[in-house]
C-alpha cells in the first residue's frame, strides 16, 4: 500500500457533495430543488419553530445557521479552513451590542454597525492570513482570532471585558408603520428570519455568480485556477471578507437575541463551533449549515440536560463524523438520493 501522505500532492480530495445534473428521476428532482434552494430553505425555516422543541432554541438555531452558512462560504465553497471565525461572530455581536448599549442606536443601524465591524476585522485578518497557504491558514486564522479576543477582553470600558457586554435591551422593534414586540418569541423568530432570509438569498446569488464559480474552481484546483488567469489571492481575500461579513451579521443578530455578548463569543471554542456545525451538516451544501446548526444545538441542549460533560460526547460524535460520515448529514442525504437515482 502506498497511501500518499495526508497532505501531499494530489491528496486534497476531500469528498464534496458536488452539484451534478442527474439523468434519472431523482436527479431531475434534485436539480429542480437546487434551482429553488432559497425558497425551499426559507419554507423550512418558516415552519421550523412549530417543529422545534421550544422557540427560544429556534432563534438560536437560525442565528447559528447563518453563522455556519457564512463559514461554509470559505470552507465548503472555497476550500479554506479557518479556525478564526469567532472573531467575526464576536465582532458583529460587539459592534451591534455597543451601538445599542452605549449609543442607543436603532437595532437596524446596530445590525449595520455590527456587520461593518466584523467586515473590518475580517479584512485585517484576511490580508495577513491569505499570505499563508493550505494547512497554515487554519493555524494563522486561529492565532489572529486569539489576538482579536485578547484585544476585546482588554478593552473593558467598551466590551465589559470578562463580564461580557450587558444592557442590550431591545424589547420593541419600531419600524415605520410597525411595532414588533420582541419579547414574544414567535415575533422575534420571524423578525430574525426576515434578516436571515435576506442573507440566504444574497448568499445564493453569490454562489450562482461568476465569482462563486471562480471560488469553486479555486477550491477544486488552486494552481489551475491561477493558470486560467484568476488572481487567486485576491479572490480568496474577497471571499474571506464576505464570509466575515455574513458571520458578523449573525453575531449582530445574536447580541440582540441574547441581550448580552459574553466574551466567549470571540473565543477559540466558538470558532470551533462553526467548524463542527459545517461538518455535521455537510460542508459545501447549501442547506447543510442549517442542518448542522440544528444538530449541534439540539445535541448540546439534549446532552446538557443529562450531563454537565456534554462536550465529551460532542467531541466524540465529531470524531465519528470525520471518520465515518465526512459528507455530513445533509451531504450524505444528497449523496444517497443521487446514488439511488442513477
Amino acid at each position, binding site marked *: 500500500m502506498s*497511501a500518499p501522505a495526508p497532505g501531499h500532492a494530489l491528496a486534497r480530495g476531500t469528498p464534496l457533495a458536488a452539484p451534478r445534473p442527474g439523468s434519472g428521476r431523482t436527479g431531475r428532482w434534485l436539480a429542480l430543488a437546487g434551482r429553488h434552494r432559497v425558497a425551499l430553505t426559507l419554507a423550512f425555516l418558516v415552519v421550523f419553530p412549530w417543529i422545534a422543541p421550544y422557540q427560544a432554541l429556534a432563534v438560536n438555531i437560525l442565528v447559528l445557521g447563518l453563522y455556519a452558512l457564512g463559514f461554509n462560504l470559505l470552507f465548503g465553497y472555497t476550500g479554506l479552513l479557518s479556525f478564526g471565525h469567532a472573531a467575526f461572530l464576536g465582532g458583529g455581536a460587539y459592534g451591534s451590542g455597543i451601538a445599542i448599549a452605549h449609543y442607543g442606536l436603532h437595532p437596524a443601524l446596530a445590525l449595520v454597525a455590527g456587520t461593518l465591524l466584523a467586515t473590518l476585522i475580517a479584512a485585517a485578518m484576511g490580508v495577513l492570513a491569505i*499570505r499563508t497557504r493550505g*494547512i497554515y491558514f487554519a493555524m494563522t486564522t486561529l492565532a489572529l482570532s486569539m489576538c482579536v479576543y485578547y484585544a476585546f477582553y482588554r478593552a473593558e470600558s467598551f466590551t465589559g471585558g470578562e463580564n461580557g457586554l450587558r444592557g442590550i435591551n431591545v424589547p420593541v422593534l419600531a419600524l415605520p408603520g410597525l411595532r414588533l414586540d420582541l419579547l414574544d418569541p414567535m415575533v422575534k423568530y420571524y423578525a430574525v428570519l426576515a434578516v436571515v432570509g435576506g442573507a440566504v438569498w444574497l448568499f445564493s446569488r453569490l454562489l450562482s455568480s461568476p465569482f462563486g464559480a471562480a471560488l469553486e474552481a479555486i477550491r477544486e484546483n488552486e494552481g489551475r485556477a491561477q493558470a486560467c488567469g484568476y488572481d487567486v489571492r485576491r479572490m480568496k481575500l474577497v471571499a474571506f471578507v464576505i464570509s466575515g461579513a455574513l458571520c458578523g451579521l449573525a453575531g449582530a443578530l445574536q447580541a440582540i437575541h441574547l441581550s448580552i455578548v459574553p466574551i466567549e463569543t470571540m473565543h477559540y471554542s466558538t470558532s*470551533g463551533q462553526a*467548524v463542527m456545525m459545517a461538518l455535521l451538516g455537510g460542508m459545501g451544501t447549501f442547506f447543510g449549515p442549517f442542518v448542522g446548526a440544528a444538530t449541534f444545538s439540539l445535541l448540546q441542549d439534549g446532552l446538557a440536560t443529562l450531563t454537565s460533560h456534554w*462536550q*465529551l460526547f460532542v*467531541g466524540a460524535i465529531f*470524531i465519528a463524523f470525520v471518520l465515518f460520515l465526512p459528507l455530513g448529514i445533509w451531504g450524505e442525504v444528497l449523496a444517497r438520493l443521487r446514488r439511488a437515482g442513477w
Partner: protein
Amino acid sequence: MTDLTIGGFPLDLLALQLVTGVALGAIYVLVGIGLSLIFGLMNVVNFAHGAFFMVGAYVGVFLYGYTGSFWLSLVAAPLAMGLLGLAVERVLVRPLYGRGIDDPLLLTFGLSYVMVESVRIAFGLTGLPFGAPPELRGAVDLGIGYFPLYRLFLIAFSLTVVGALWLFIERTSFGLVIRAGARDPQIVQVLGIEISKVWLAVFGLGCALAGLAGILAAPLQGVTPEMGIPVLAEAFVVTVVGGMGSLAGAVLAGLLVGIVVAMTSLVAPDMTKMAIFALMALVLLVRPRGLLGRAGALG
C-alpha cells in the same frame, strides 16, 4: 548591587525578565518542535497538541502527589503522552491518510474536546495548584542578581532535550529517515522502510514532547483543563514565525516569542498576550515564509 539602567529599567530586573522569557520560550520550543515534527513529516496539524500538553501536565502533577518525586513525573508525563500519541495515530489518524489534508486536523480538533472534558471529569473544573518541587525552589545568585532556580533548571533541562533531539535527528539512521521523509515520503518507501511506521513514531514523539512541556510548565502556573488552548495558539505562532517545518526555526521562534512576552510584560503588561500575535503579524507581512522557512510552502 547595580544602578545601571536601560530604558528606565534596572539591569538586574531586565536580566531576570530575560531568564523568565527564555524559560517560557523553552516551553514554546518543546511544544513547537513537536508540532513541527508531526507537521513537517506528515503534513498533519495536530490540533490536540495543546490537549496533550495539558494532559501531560495533569499526569505529572497527579503522579507527584502520589510519589513525591518530580523526576519521576518528568519521565512519566512524556512517556504517557507518547503512548497515548501512538494509540491516537494508530487508531484515529491513520484511517484518514489519503483523504483531504484537513481531515486529520478536524479529527484532532474533536479529540481535544474529548481530552479536555475527560480531564474535567477526572480532576474537576477548577484545576490544581502546583509549585516547583522543594529541591528546585528558591533562587541562586549568578553574579548579576538572584534568579529562580526552577526557571534555570527548566532552561537547562529543555536545552538538553532539544540537543539530544538534534543529535537523534542528525546522527542516527532513524533521524535520517525522518529528514528524508519530510522532503519526500516516496524516497522513504524506495529505501524499503514502511513510512507508516515512521509516521507512527513521529506522532508519538511529538506528543511526548508536548507532555514533557506540560509537566515542565506546571510549576510556573499550576494546571487547569483549559491550559492547552492558549498554548496551542502560541505554538502555531511559533511554527509560523519559525518557518514551515523547520526545527531550527521552531527553536529560534520559541525563544523569541518567550522573550517578547517577558519583555512586553515589563514595558506594557496589558499588551503581553497581544505581543505574541503582533510578532506573528509582522513576520507574515515582512517574511511570510517564516524566519528559517523553506520557500515553496507558501504561495
